């Protein structure tokens, strides 16, 4: 108790004496909410921890949930950035999502991530399609801690992460709509299993998500296969 009181008084003294030296983000800032209630409940403190590295294994759901998290961050008035190292983001949905960065080389993506994290101006920074060595993730983790941002890496960096998430669609989770012959014709939704693991923390939830048809359907009638054009 005495140590805590001393720490608090020291902090007060520093704040009074050196007001400019205060970090922009205090450690009292809440976690970065995903905007999806059931997922927030599975995450410690109700969201992605600020100042820490979290990882999400590659697979279905990672982009869906992190994109929604980015939108929730922007809706709260903060900034969110998405570094698309592999250049695979596609579709008009990204106009409404987090700020998208497309580096020409993966190493540039890592440099940008460090800049954004250290700036303290981004609540969430997501890196995808960039493979880096452990020491680079350590460096980025330090930048995240300095800036108070939540850093999420999609794929890789498992050992460095404070929080590890995986998601998959179980075989029964594909909500195929079928024709009278039992052939799949459309996939309006899927059920995802999301597992959250951290030190002393393990949760698993199921979330049903729609499948984005943006720029996908080529047929005139969405429920029917398109028989136009190609020869057989």
């Amino acid at each position, binding site marked *: 108790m005495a140590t805590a009181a001393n720490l608090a008084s020291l902090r007060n003294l520093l704040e009074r004496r050196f007001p400019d030296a205060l970090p*922009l983000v205090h450690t009292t800032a809440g976690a970065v909410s995903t905007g999806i209630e059931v997922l927030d409940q599975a995450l410690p403190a109700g969201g992605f921890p600020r100042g820490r590295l979290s990882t999400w294994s590659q*697979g*279905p*759901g990672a*982009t*869906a949930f992190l994109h*929604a998290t980015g*939108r929730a961050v*922007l*809706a709260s*008035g903060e*900034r969110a950035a998405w570094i698309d190292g592999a250049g*695979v*983001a*596609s*579709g*008009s*949905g*990204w*106009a*409404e999502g987090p*700020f*998208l*960065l*497309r*580096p*020409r080389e993966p190493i540039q993506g890592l*440099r*940008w991530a460090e*800049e*954004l994290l*250290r700036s303290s*101006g981004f*609540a969430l920074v997501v890196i995808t399609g960039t493979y880096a060595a452990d020491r680079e993730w350590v460096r980025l983790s330090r930048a995240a801690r300095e800036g108070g941002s939540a850093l999420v890496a999609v794929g890789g960096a498992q050992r460095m992460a404070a929080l590890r998430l995986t998601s*998959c*669609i179980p*075989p029964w989770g*594909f909500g*195929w709509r079928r024709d009278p*012959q039992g*052939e*799949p*014709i459309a*996939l309006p939704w*899927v059920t995802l299993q999301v597992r959250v693991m951290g030190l002393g923390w393990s949760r698993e939830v199921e979330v049903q998500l*729609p*499948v*984005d048809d*943006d*720029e*996908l359907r*080529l*047929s005139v009638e969405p429920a029917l*296969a*398109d*028989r*136009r*054009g*190609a020869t*057989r």
Partner: protein
Amino acid sequence: MSYVCLWSPRWPTAAAPLADLAVLLLSEAPRISVDVRGLVWADARGLPASRTAVALCRRVQELQEGVDVRAGVATVPVAAEVAARSSESSLTVLEPGYERAFLAPHPLDLLTPDPHLLNLLRGVGIQTCGALSELPREAVEVRFGAAGSALWRLARADDRRLLFRPVPPERPSAAFEFPDYSLAEAGRLLFPANALLESVCTGLRKRGETARTLLLELGLEGGGAIRERVGIGVPTAERRLWLPRVRARLDTLALPDRVSGIRLFAEETETAGARQGDFFDPGFASAAAVEEALSRIFDSQEAAFVQPRGEPHPLPEARTSWVPLEPRDVVEPARREKGAAALRLHLLPEPQPLPVRVEVRGGTLHPRAFREKGRWHELPASAGPDRLSGGHAVGAPYAREYFRCQTGDGRLVWLYRDARTDTWHLQGWWA
């Protein structure tokens, strides 16, 4: 605050021949303009007007020997014009405040009105400026229209003409000369450059502007100068952001001669964005820090931040183009609505060819498994085909059969068969 009007009965009433004369008069007054009616105007605001007028007349007489030039000086252009055109003396100077009284006895035709309007006015007995100016404006406007109203204003020495455009304020600049010594190494110029930057940035902030490009001019001892442009991704008026860029430019600069002076000025400037501050808005509170980070990112790649734009291309891999985002959109983001999560389509930049095992279902070829990174992946379910063919519009024929496929390890991938070559490709996946 005076205008000088020069007029001569021997001058032609066309502007072009006087233009050459006007250029030569610039040695006496900073701004000269030529009127199509054969008048030459000089801007004597801030100058001793009478002396300027005398100097101008003398200069004209030097250039055009024997010409009878007359000058009128007044704070109102129309009064100066009438003074020049009506007076018998070579110089007429009107005291400020007496312009209307001066105009009153002069005939209306000196104001060069429309001949039709002048006839109408003469028809009702209005011959002089004073007679017109005494009438109520409404009465003139009702009877003689907008042209009559404009002439009425001129007759009252109310001249709203803009003879000279406002001078744009000079861009912030700073210079430093070395009178007693010169420098041979560009690196040693950093110290004076830093001081100049402070001055230029302060000037920019006072004007509410930011700079995108600075011009660094190094005066050489043997004459001439080197000019180097220094740019920044995000326009700013922060010295600490400019200094590393100026330093980098000086470090790589090869000097052909010793430098005897340095000058820095803001070349491309923009109005600094300003919005109402809100310290409870986390985006606003961190805007300055973000601006600094972005300037480094935009320096490394101009189109770093992008947003999608839909293209009317038939092939999926060419349907999205990326438009660079302005730094200001990131520094001061617009608040957006929360959105529902959905599995999103990811597309490979180029479709990736891969081996596929197929089966025939319902008379159609369906993928049963595909090989990726040395492993075969079973496809328990696939929906399709969605067919796409054409080519006249894009210059290359294509025929594709698309399938959305569920993989055995719980992924959703998008494959297509190229019907022209009978090969299979991975177009993308949902994640």
